[in-house]
């Protein structure tokens, strides 16, 4: 990847962060937990996206961000109040902005009409607030033409509210047609360059405004040995004689506002008809001659610097280096790391854990005493290894916040579509889970939230009839509980209509008529394949995907899903997920002399089959009778080809497992060794896919054990 592409990728990563910031801020404003900082942060997020997009020539994105920003600026300056309607519009605008960012990154066609509709609404929202300051600048937003790449010099007067603070001197906001001298001091920060901007380009634009005298301060440039080639050491003072307004001068720096220190001061114009104004002129003029003198002095200052360096090389340079290093250190509190590198590290730590447990097994085998120094040292090593493993896992762990935020958008969209008023309450956004788990949670959660809004909550009129507030509440919480993360999605709707669920289940052949079912068994029916309680196929949830798919994707993550519902009070779905996908809790079993691992999440119970319980079925198949139902018995050793004859069930252990579609099966193994946490090693990456095997692991004795793919074995038995 070339450097420009890499910078662009960083820009998109930063966009994601800015978008999250934007949404957090808007939601905080909505819940009235905000201060001026929040509004500033929101404004800044949009502004940064616009700035970066400008540098990469992403015109559509710049255009929309610009209008959005204009409206936000009016809010920031208190000219319009963020009422509920405006907030809703801003949240929708942030959704559009997110889409535009995504389309700019991944390509594809954006729905133009949606963009232009929101664009218009934003422009309209900015207008009623167009009180004196804004009316001086006619509604320029719609006609804003974004610069080709980086060219902030368009005359884009609606920025006047942010930048202008010189109206009084200019005389009531009249653009100065007469020539004026501005002193511009410009000191780029490294971020300016990192975002693909260049000081030279900006200086070129300043020069284009009029007659400029540029003085460059090179005194900060260090020796080569201390130079960060991508640092920022140069600063400039420009005396610009021009007939433009101060706002137009500032506009040059519009896209880099936060990435440099810039000050623009206008030298007061002395009116020829003006007689004498002693104090103010002397005061404001004072710094100017000094600055004017600075210009021609540059070559001397170079010499002075060199002379200084020559005189005390040893002293001068470390001091300069220290000065340079300090701010850089403060700025870097986070780093971006390629995910592959983290995964490689996790892999290596996994090896370390295996190696450590092999070593301790060898020590035990060698008959070394528990209290010997070797054994004690080994215990310390074990402790350390565990800490390293936890810390490395923590690198991959990320707060669930982004996904929760994405859900707030889903709620908004679905609520709009079905005409309900819904509030999403989230808790525990800082709860951390493995990145892969988070990524794979998006789809199931989206579906659950859609269901909650579409089916869970009653229609507004029904809510009022039931004595509830018109606005429904969907609650989403995350919490850590005993080494797993628990995510709950609940609504305060009518709860599950059990009579209706049962009726549908019978109609669709999911259950037989007349079967007695407990309330929770009825609730569980909605996870059955092909089950959908919606009587009409709505645009929202009726997409052929039922809760069975949700359940399957949660199970694929090593998680479980359960439901509880109270009539009239609502429904709660509870997801229990592992914190990571790199280790797994497994039951270690033996089959035909081989050691295998069965994922604990699939296991319901284990039992020893007794003679009368086992029945033959057809030529080979066997079933086991448990609590009134027959469950297929699967000999894992025979199925996987470890032996050619099926083992005697009476000498085996049956492990009851639940696979997709809630069907139970009994896996027959020779014996159970115990439960253990194992490090997952992908078989696909290292070898290839094997029937009935999900992955492999290395046990403490150094032997490889395969982890069973329970679903595949059960499905293979049926076909």
């Amino acid at each position, binding site marked *: 990847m070339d*450097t420009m592409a890499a910078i662009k990728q960083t820009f998109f990563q930063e966009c994601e962060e800015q978008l999250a910031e934007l949404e957090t801020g808007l939601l905080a404003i909505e819940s009235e937990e905000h201060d001026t900082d929040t509004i500033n942060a929101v404004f800044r997020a949009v502004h940064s996206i616009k700035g970066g997009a400008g540098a990469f020539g992403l015109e559509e994105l710049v255009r929309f961000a610009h209008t959005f920003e204009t409206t936000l600026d009016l809010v920031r300056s208190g000219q319009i109040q963020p009422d509920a309607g405006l907030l809703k519009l801003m949240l929708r605008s942030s959704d559009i902005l997110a889409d535009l960012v995504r389309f700019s990154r991944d390509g594809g066609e954006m729905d133009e009409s949606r963009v232009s509709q929101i664009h218009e609404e934003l422009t309209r929202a900015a207008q009623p607030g167009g009180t004196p300051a804004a009316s001086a600048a006619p509604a320029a937003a719609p006609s804003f033409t974004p610069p080709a790449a980086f060219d902030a010099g368009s005359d884009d007067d609606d920025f006047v509210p942010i930048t202008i603070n010189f109206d009084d001197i200019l005389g009531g906001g009249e653009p100065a047609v007469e020539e004026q001298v501005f002193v511009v001091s410009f000191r*780029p920060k490294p971020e300016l360059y990192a975002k693909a901007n260049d000081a*030279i380009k900006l*200086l070129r634009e300043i020069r284009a405004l009029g007659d400029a005298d*540029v003085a460059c301060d090179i005194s900060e*440039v260090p020796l080569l040995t201390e130079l960060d*080639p991508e640092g920022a*050491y*140069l600063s*400039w003072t420009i005396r610009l004689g021009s007939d433009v307004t101060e706002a137009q001068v500032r506009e040059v720096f519009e896209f880099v506002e936060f990435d440099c220190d810039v000050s623009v001061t206008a030298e007061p114009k002395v009116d020829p008809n003006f007689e004498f104004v002693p104090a103010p002129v002397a005061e404001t003029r004072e710094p100017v001659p000094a600055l004017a003198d600075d210009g021609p002095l540059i070559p001397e200052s170079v010499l002075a610097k060199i002379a200084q360096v020559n005189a005390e090389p040893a002293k001068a340079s470390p001091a300069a280096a220290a000065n340079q290093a300090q701010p850089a250190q403060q700025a870097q509190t986070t780093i971006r790391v390629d995910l592959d590198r983290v995964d490689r590290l996790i892999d290596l730590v996994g090896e370390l854990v295996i190696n450590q447990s092999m070593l301790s097994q060898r020590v035990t085998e060698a008959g070394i005493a528990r209290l010997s120094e070797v054994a004690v040292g080994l215990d310390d090593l074990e402790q350390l290894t565990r800490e390293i493993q936890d810390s490395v896992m923590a690198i991959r762990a990320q707060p669930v916040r982004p996904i929760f935020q994405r859900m707030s958008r889903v709620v908004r969209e679905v609520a709009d579509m079905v005409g309900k008023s819904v509030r999403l309450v989230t808790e525990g956004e800082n709860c951390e889970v493995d990145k892969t788990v988070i990524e794979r949670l998006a789809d199931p959660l989206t579906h659950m939230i859609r269901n909650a809004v579409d089916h869970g909550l009653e229609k507004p009129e029904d809510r009022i009839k039931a004595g509830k507030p018109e606005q429904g509440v969907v609650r989403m919480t995350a919490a850590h509980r005993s080494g797993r993360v628990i995510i709950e999605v609940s609504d305060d709707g009518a709860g599950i209509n059990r009579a209706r669920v049962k009726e549908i289940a019978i109609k669709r052949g999911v259950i037989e008529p007349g079967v007695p079912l407990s309330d929770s068994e009825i609730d569980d029916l909605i996870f059955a394949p092909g089950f959908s309680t919606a009587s009409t196929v709505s645009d929202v949830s009726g997409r052929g995907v039922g809760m069975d798919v949700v359940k399957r994707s949660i199970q694929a993550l090593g998680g479980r899903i359960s439901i509880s519902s109270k009539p009239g009070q609502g429904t709660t779905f509870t997801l229990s997920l592992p914190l990571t996908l790199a280790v797994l809790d497994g039951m270690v079993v033996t089959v035909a002399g081989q050691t295998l691992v069965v994922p604990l999440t699939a296991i319901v119970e284990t039992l020893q089959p007794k003679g009368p319980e086992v029945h033959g079925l057809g030529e080979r198949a066997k079933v086991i009778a448990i609590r009134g139902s027959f469950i297929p018995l699967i000999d894992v050793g025979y199925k996987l080809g470890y032996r050619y004859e099926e083992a005697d069930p009476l000498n085996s252990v049956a492990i009851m497992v639940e696979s997709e579609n809630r069907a139970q099966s009994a896996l027959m193994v020779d014996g159970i060794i115990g439960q253990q946490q194992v490090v997952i090693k992908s078989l696909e990456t290292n070898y290839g896919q094997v029937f009935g095997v999900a992955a492999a692991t290395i046990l403490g004795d150094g032997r490889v054990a395969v982890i069973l793919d329970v679903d595949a074995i059960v499905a293979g038995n049926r076909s």
Partner: protein
Amino acid sequence: MKQAMSTTLALPPVLDITAAGPLASEFLRARGKDVSIDASKVERVGAQCIQVLLSAVATWTLDGMEFDLANPSAALVEGLDIAGLEPANFIARNA
């Protein structure tokens, strides 16, 4: 003897942010010798490469070696002019 210690470095046509790091390393490698910079090919120059060049001049001055910017292209002169600098800022003579 002095002849053998001198080296010529040609600047690449594009001196943007991506060129700054390699340029700095190249100068560091050439340290301790008199250098003559062939700047005739430069088509575009950014502020960070100017920083590297200024830093090199300061370093060569400190070392008491010669640093010469030869045949600056029109584009380079224009870029330097915009930044308020001139080719003379990039010459160190310590003979």
